[in-house]
């Protein structure tokens, strides 16, 4: 069971933060903050998720994102803490949007800073994979044919499982 055990509590520094918000984000501004946190930063890997126009052959007019206030932020913090335990990181930033979004809109930012790129890349992908399978967000597509809840993808679980995490 992917969800069956609790994560150990890991101390997070102020250099790691999570926001769940309706408004858009500015990637440059977020990366600048990460750069300014430490003169040791040599690498920032980051990922931006974008609302696609077509999903499973249906035109998406609008996407609506629901979340579980409190648990969502907590689960993402836990995932970042796990990443910070596994790799030597200098900072991390996750922003996930909620509410109504349109095709082409940014949905999520995961940015990780480190001394060297290998750790930043791995941690960024790890956080994104676990966010996809563990953070309580739900997408509803509002199409010309009506509303429908998006189904979870098996490939997202495969992506998370390849990290072989012991929980």
């Amino acid at each position: 069971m992917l969800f069956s055990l609790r994560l150990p509590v890991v101390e997070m520094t102020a250099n790691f933060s999570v926001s769940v918000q309706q408004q858009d984000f500015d990637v440059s501004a977020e990366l600048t903050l990460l750069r300014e946190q430490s003169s040791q930063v040599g690498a920032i890997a980051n990922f931006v998720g974008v609302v696609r126009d077509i999903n499973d052959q249906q035109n998406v007019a609008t996407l609506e994102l629901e979340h579980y206030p409190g648990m969502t932020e907590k689960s993402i913090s836990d995932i970042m803490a796990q990443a910070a335990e596994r790799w030597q990181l200098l900072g991390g930033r996750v922003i996930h949007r909620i509410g109504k979004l349109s095709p082409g809109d940014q949905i999520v930012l995961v940015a990780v800073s480190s001394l060297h790129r290998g750790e930043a890349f791995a941690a960024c992908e790890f956080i994104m994979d676990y966010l996809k399978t563990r953070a309580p967000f739900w997408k509803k597509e509002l199409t010309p044919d009506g509303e429908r809840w998006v189904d979870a993808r098996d490939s997202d679980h495969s992506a998370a499982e390849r990290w072989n995490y012991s929980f």
Partner: protein
Amino acid sequence: MVTVLFFARIREQLGIDRLSLILPQEPMTVSRLKQHIVDIHNPDWSDILMADNVIKAVNQEVVDDNHSLKEGDEIAFFPPVTGG
């Protein structure tokens, strides 16, 4: 009292987003709470709450059906997540 929350498709199927309940007996598990909710509210809710892929969280941590509940807990039921 415990608080029970429902999200996304489950919230819509039940037509309710939140319940406040008095725990009927100790020890109480998540599994028994689901049956209790069905018993006191609506037999049609059984298929929705008992479905295999329903995720259960207690105090914002994911748990399994055997997790023991206590006074003041926040219990949530939701479908597989689809963020990112």
